[in-house]
């Protein structure tokens, strides 16, 4: 018999893990991205390095995503 409240809480935790980290990464990239675009207006050769710097905060989402995947595919099936 699956515990519906427990399962729901696990699913909710997964959602929070992804959405909160997503918002956090977005806030970070917003600042870096606009600065990078500003530099690119001056020097188009900056594209590569600009992209690298802009996506650095994205690691946060990936961590969140890994947590969510583990919650959904390891923790959730083990709830009885």
């Amino acid at each position, binding site marked *: 018999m699956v515990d519906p409240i427990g399962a729901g809480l696990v699913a909710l935790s997964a959602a929070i893990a992804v959405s909160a980290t997503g918002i956090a990464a977005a806030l970070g990239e917003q600042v870096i991205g606009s600065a990078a675009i500003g530099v690119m207006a001056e020097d188009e050769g900056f594209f590569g390095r600009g992209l690298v710097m802009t*996506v650095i905060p994205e690691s946060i989402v990936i961590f969140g995503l890994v947590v969510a995947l583990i919650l959904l595919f390891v923790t959730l099936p083990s709830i009885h």
Partner: protein
Amino acid sequence: MFEPQPMTKVVIAGSKDYMRVAIDVMHKRDAVHIADFVDEDEDFKIGKPYASATELSERAVSLRSIASYLSIKGKEDISNKYPEGAIVDTIDAKTEHLNFEVTQVTASISEIESKIKDVKDKQRLLEPLKSFAMPLDLYTGYRSLAVFVGTLKGSPTISDITSDYELETVPYGRGHAIALFVPREFEDEILKRLQEQSYAALPLPDMEGTPKDILVDLGAQLTELESQKQKSEEDLADLRQKYIEYILASDEYLSIETQKAEAPLRFATTTNAFIVEGWVPTKDLEPVQRDMDSATNGHVIVAVDTSEGADVEKVPVALNNPLPSRPLEVLIEAFSIPKYNEIDPTKLMTFMYPFLFGIMLGDVGYGAVCIALGLLVSRRIKSKGIHDLAIILAYAGVLSVIFGFIFNEFFGVEAFGHGGLLTFIEYPAIPRLDNVLTLLIVTLVIGILMLTLGFVLGFVNERRQHGLKHAVFVKVSWLCMLWGGVLVIILILPPLTSGTGIQLSAGLVGGLAVAVIGFALLIMGEGVIGIAELPSLLSNVLSYSRLLSIGISSAGIALAVNRLSDALFFSKGGIFIIFGVLLLLVGHAVNTALGILDSGLQALRLHYVEFFTKFYRGGGVKYKPFGFERKYTEEK
């Protein structure tokens, strides 16, 4: 194998009498990358451009103004090339003649345009009065009468000022058009009254006849003028057609000649001699020397400069890749050109970029769309950047199709194998949505392998640039920590998740030892500050899990589109099938666009951020030989 083209440093020197010939030879060969001379001193001065440079630029300016009148952009494709010899002697006379012809036509066009504007102005003024029957000349020239012709909002009431007036009004637009005749003594008072109703006077043109007749006449004039204008524009188009080849060719000729005339600005000169420093691809060295020798009878020498040793930073870099890899160079250049003594990762990226892209998109249908789109765009558009990206998209499409078969996805449908549409093809597929954990581990393994490759390449680069000892400290250290860490995690993760105790095994001790050795090497190489970099190792590996997550979201959207169109429309049958097909088309088109954009950017990111940072710095100088890629002219 991963090196740019070998370059040789040369010094070209000779008497100034032969400078012009030497410039011609270098330009024709299009192989010498000139290092601009900047350090002037008492003996060596920067050369002076030839006097012809000014004249050439002036000609180019007048030619380009003609080109802009004829809307010639300079990017047109011309089938046959113009012989340069036919331009040289006639360029002055011909450009002048062309200028005369074009100015004549453009002047007549602007004259007609001003006439058209004049007629339209009159039409605008007379339009409100067209239902007044009185001829125009009767509105002016009275000594005792004041006349108001114009438009105003309401209809005027002036009977309280005087009853002695004549008024005609017609509704016009939102208000009225009026013609009002009053004795001159009431002029000021009436004007005030009218202005209260936003009176706008119409300045009547000096013409004869009733407004209606004049308007008919003006209409005829306008038609005539427009047909004249059209004819002149056709003349201009004829001129364009007739002279486009000549204009493009002479513009190119002038650019080339200006480039040659200004070349001495990059040379070092003394009173009687000139010296050029530069680099030549080693394979082109011998032909350059031979040409120079025969053209100047040995008066200008091309000497190999062997003193160069330390300054590899300044050597220009010409990437050296086989044809199939060349489109990928655009991605390398977007990051940074490699240095001369650095590994050029283009060939590796030729395999790895489509591989990562394919894992993410991983759908036979979407992959086929990518291939078709890539081939179509690369055929149609020749502009370098987009052409190259289109070819990369086609490569990526091929890998997406392959992974599509592995994941058993065709526009989100399990098309092949067990329970699929094509039951006769059966093979053990790995559907992504059912194998999340397995695939998550696979992506991490891909990450570990790519990072390992990155560190190995970094080791090679560092050894080349800073010696073996440094390379061991900064790269082997990371390799040890990566693999030691991986070993430890593999051994302790299962007991941790299942809750049993961790057993001390030889593997675990070995892993820990390797990691600690790596850590020690890092501290020795980079100091305590190296610790700050440690977490990046974990985040870099985990970052590869996006290979799975992007893929799952793309597959999820495809599945959602299919289920929605089935539940909402196809199950109902009849007319709803059309809506179902529409939803499928739109949904999959959007998902394809998203998939290409996202997979493309994320695959690029995994290279730029996770992979390149392990070995690649870039910052090289791009090889730009002194010469010109002729498009419209042939050499004499």
